[in-house]
């Protein structure tokens, strides 16, 4: 069950929904049409967004372009992963799902590669490119989730794990 719906139901335990709660629930249901439209908008622009992010990332970190095998493909995979799962989190209105499903796991990989700085730059760039590529309202709905990724993946690892 959607986290926002669950919250309304949990608050109303042992009674019926109040008028305000009913209105909130209906607003929530109506909001899904909009959220799905945003997701479709991201899907339509995905390849453009990912390409622009990678162009800027490789410009900032040129050594990766030649140094690591299949760098572009790996970068494409990773940026696409974050973009798609952030979109799904936006659809659900559930940032914790995003953390559990991707970020905690992906952070282990980023830290093992000592890539926090690269991740911070790449996902901050993703926020920027999304803001410039999508209609403003669509970007405003998605960027908070991308920002969670930037902050978490770009955070410094614990010293003993580096």
């Amino acid at each position, binding site marked *: 069950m959607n986290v926002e719906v669950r919250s309304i139901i949990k608050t109303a335990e042992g009674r019926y929904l109040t008028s305000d709660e009913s209105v909130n629930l209906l607003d929530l249901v109506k909001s899904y049409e909009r959220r799905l439209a945003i997701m479709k908008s991201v899907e339509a622009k995905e390849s453009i967004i990912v390409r622009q992010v990678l162009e800027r990332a490789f410009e900032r970190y040129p050594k990766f372009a030649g140094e690591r095998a299949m760098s572009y493909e790996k970068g494409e995979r990773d940026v*696409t992963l974050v973009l798609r799962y952030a979109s799904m989190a936006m659809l659900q209105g559930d940032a914790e799902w995003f953390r559990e499903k991707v970020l*905690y796991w992906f952070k282990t990989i980023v830290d093992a590669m000592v890539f926090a700085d690269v991740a911070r730059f790449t996902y901050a760039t993703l926020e920027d490119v999304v803001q410039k590529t999508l209609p403003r309202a669509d970007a405003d709905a998605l960027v908070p989730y991308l920002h969670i990724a930037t902050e978490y993946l770009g955070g410094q690892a614990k010293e003993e794990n580096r």
Partner: protein
Amino acid sequence: MFGLLRSNYFAPRDYVSYDMKTGVLRARDGARLVAFPEQWSTGLLAGLEDECGDAWPVVMHRCGEWWGKRHMERLERELTAYYGSKLTDMPAVQVHATLAASFAAHGWGALSMDVTRIERGVLVARVENAAMAAALLSAKKDAKGRTVDGLLAGILSGMLSQASGGDVGCQEIACAARGDEQCVFVCTEKARLQEVPAWVRKQMPAAEILDRLDAARAP
């Protein structure tokens, strides 16, 4: 273009399901799980000490080793299906992240692997909130200067042996239950670990134990 785009197989809401009517907790592949409380952990430790005396760590280690091997066999099947790639073909960092997520999903604690000594044949695993140590701390029970996560050491040994096809030993060299910052496990060839239990009993610091293992390896 990349193949399957997958993330964390062990995300809690996908990995664990609970049927209130039947009282059954299941993992994603349908295998039954049993959740046990911290009191069970402290009870197990007390019971083993009572029944087995000084051999309790060996018994715990063996139990963990057996379970770790079976667990790794299951993971190899499940993760190959999910990621579309064998564990042995995945990048090491992805295997590490996935094993850490598996540990967390099963409640064993937050695992991180230190591979800085891997060229010397030593893998160091650090676990925050390790189950047995956390249970003792929570119950305010005295670890009597001992490391108490023999079960987890056995699990790591079993998992790494299964994954590598070798015979990997694992010993806990620092334990939160006795006041160390976190639980630390050293994993390497079993023959290299022979003296480690004695060093641990003397409460030698983990860093010194690792240095000694390095020195013993040096030509």
